């Protein structure tokens, strides 16, 4: 027992680790803020293109979504940070050389846009076709019907799956450690190396759980509330 406490819950090391991890959490929050915003907007646009009446749009969006759903985020991160930088320095294209945090935001956005596109598409698909027909029969254009009738209802449906996606995104920020982003996992490994004790990892685990556990609770409550067939949306 003493050994367990010494190696995994060492209070001295914990006290030393926590302030440094707090700074790392700020970095995580920063990445999350932008990646979440961009990937939701990107996902919505992709979803609308995916169901567009224009075939080329449907086709391009479909390729994008399949591609990024099929690639490991770790590969995308590496590609964007190291891969682009390599090309950038060889070809003298400085704009391709990204700082670690913008690179992480870009990679997560690219990948998660594909995920949220599928969520938005399912959400839009869950709204009865009669809603669109009623809107069109009142003289609204396709765009107006989407904007005022279908999307406001679809947004409510997609809140629980999007919350789940946010939880996954929080955990995936740990992958940014491979491109030297000073986030929680990276920091804790660094400290672990210095103190030769895995307690910093415990601190990191706690840091992630502080973010994720409340959201997990929120997500399951939202799922119950917006669950299928419980009651009509909008009551």
């Amino acid at each position, binding site marked *: 027992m003493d050994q367990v406490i010494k190696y995994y819950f060492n209070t001295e090391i914990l006290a030393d680790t926590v302030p440094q991890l707090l700074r790392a959490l700020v970095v995580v929050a920063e990445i999350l803020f932008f990646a979440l915003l961009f990937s939701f907007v990107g996902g919505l646009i992709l979803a609308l293109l995916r169901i567009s009446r224009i075939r080329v749009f449907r086709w391009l969006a479909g390729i994008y979504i399949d591609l990024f759903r099929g690639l490991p985020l770790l590969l995308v991160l590496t590609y964007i940070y190291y891969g682009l930088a390599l090309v950038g320095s060889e070809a003298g294209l400085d704009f391709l050389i990204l700082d670690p945090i913008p690179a992480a935001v870009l990679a997560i956005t690219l990948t998660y846009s594909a995920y949220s596109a599928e969520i938005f598409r399912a959400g839009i698909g869950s709204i009865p076709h*009669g809603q669109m027909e*009623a*809107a069109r*029969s009142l003289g*609204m254009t396709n765009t*107006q019907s989407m904007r005022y009738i279908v999307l406001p209802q679809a947004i409510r449906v997609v809140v629980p799956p999007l919350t789940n996606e946010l939880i996954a995104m929080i955990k995936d920020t740990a992958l940014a450690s491979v491109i030297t982003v000073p986030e929680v996992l990276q920091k804790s490994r660094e400290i672990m190396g210095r103190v030769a004790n895995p307690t910093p990892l415990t601190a990191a685990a706690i840091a992630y759980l502080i973010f994720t556990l409340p959201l997990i609770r929120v997500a399951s409550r939202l799922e119950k509330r917006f669950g299928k067939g419980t009651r*009509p949306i*909008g009551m």
Partner: protein
Amino acid sequence: MDQPLIRLEGVHKRFGDLEVLRGIDLEVRRSEVVVIIGPSGSGKSTMLRCINGLEPIQGGRIFIEGVDITSSKTDINQIRQKAGMVFQQFNLFPHKTAIENLTLSPMKVQGKSRSEAEQIARDLLDKVGLSEKADDYPGTLSGGQQQRVAIARALAMQPDMMLFDEVTSALDPELVADVLNVMKTLALEGMTMVVVTHEMGFAREVGSRLIFMDEGLVVEEGDPRVMIENPREERTQKFLGMVL
């Protein structure tokens, strides 16, 4: 009288291999109440949906107030404002209150001010007997109330004609009368109406013309009171024998 409000010329409609409408000709004149009956699958609802441009047709032409709605030059959104549609499943917008259901399109499509749209909406809700439900969401209303809001919503666009697609079929029997009464009032006010229904009482009392459809064709049409008593065609006799 001037040109018909609605004119169908040899309308054909297919869903894949299934031919739902096999050459429909129809004219509806101002202030007529045309009641369409027929067995399920006869194409009567499909025809109504074609009139409102909700279903593309594969042959023939449809004119609304003389404008060919099948022409690619026609702005279908413009035409739809002339023909109000009421659906079997109400299709109210669940995220909007009753009055918002009525004001949305007049404001967004016709560019009416909020106060003007609300004035029209309140008058219409009053007309369908639901002025006290203006701020309620559809989910809290009974089926009959929802359908009356849906009628009011279509009327809020101040259309020249109204299309009713089996609007009482999804209602509990005791709620049907309220909806039919609203429709009767409209008919008495001179609204041009095309009504797909199974309510033979309504057809007899309000209809100016009765049309019996079967297998994508108009089998028989005539004065409702005469036709219900003395149908000429055998298929009409058989159908009326089952529903009366």
